[in-house]
């Protein structure tokens, strides 16, 4: 699974399927401060991801 991080860094994560929420927990991202797409489609935290998926994590909280 290829994961594109909010800073545009790319990480390849091996291992079995997991939920989006579990992935966010692994990388230390707060689910309320990001949205996540799988292969270009928005998915909720309960969606299961893995295999050849391309996951993009987009930070949404900006400004002062």
């Amino acid at each position, binding site marked *: 699974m290829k994961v594109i991080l909010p800073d545009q860094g790319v990480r390849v994560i091996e291992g079995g399927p997991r939920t989006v929420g579990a992935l966010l927990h692994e990388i230390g991202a707060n689910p*309320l*401060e990001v*949205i996540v797409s799988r292969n270009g489609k928005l*998915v*909720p935290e*309960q*969606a299961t991801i893995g295999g050849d998926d391309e996951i993009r994590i987009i930070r949404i909280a*900006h400004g*002062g």
Partner: protein
Amino acid sequence: MTRSGSSVSRTGDRSVEPRAVPAGVPVCACCAEPAVVYQPVTRRHLCGTHLVRDVEERVRTTIQENGQIHAGDRVAVGLSGGKDSTALLVILSRLLATWPGASLVAITVDEGIAGYRADTMRAAESLTQRLGVDHRIVTFRDLIGDDLDTLLVGRETQACTICGILRKKALADAAQAAGATSIATGHNLDDEAQSVLMNAFRGDLPRLVRTTGTGTSEAFLPRIKPLMSIPEKEIASYLFVQDLFSVLPECPYTKYALRAEVRTLLSDYECRHPGTMQHLIESKKTIERYCAGTPVMEPLHLCRECGDPCSGDLCQVCRLRHLLEK
């Protein structure tokens, strides 16, 4: 819950043709489409179509319940070009299409922040052209003679305070000049909850209960916040599913903002205890009710230098002009 859709789901007057739901994706609570968002408070998953309908309906309800927009109003939308103001303008342009005589004007304040503002300015111009909304641009240079970057040399830690005062003034002046009857800003549920907590941390009761959204003071144009019941994540999702979400640069001064700390604290807490932000806002409303008719705020005066309404002898902008020697 994960299942594949097999029948046409009908909601309202429009039907949704279901697609095969990808493996491992929850389905919408209203149809058989794959969900794009989860609402923890209502414990519902929604697909893109129903998220858009739900957000727009909640904004319509907020506007109606709070009397924010009336027939014939000209609403000035503060349009930074970021996600919240983009969503606000998109939603209002749809809702006001059926509002008799109401019109919109978008106002973008160019503070003069290198490496940040150009992208959002382009996004604002592109959006207003696409929606056919009148667009005005005002700059800090016009207002006070310098851009924000120059004003902040040696004062970077005061960035959000200085910027906030000047931006508010620039927006109010531009709204008046455009003949607006109210100013709409893109503050969302998260912003509102953060403000409650920040004012509580500061012990600032007058600011906590101050509201300019009901038109109770004739000295100011009413300021309305139609997105105040929508969580930030749902606003971003609303834009994303309509291909309206752009990844834009972050303001370089954000790191100095108290709000950034409060946002992290509050979103961590909301994640573990869904509903916390809404509870904070309800607490504010309760305090407002208790304070109704009580002289919590100082009476309004006119600034001795510019004549603008303010709570003291000098308004914040004139105080700032003295500080900045402008």
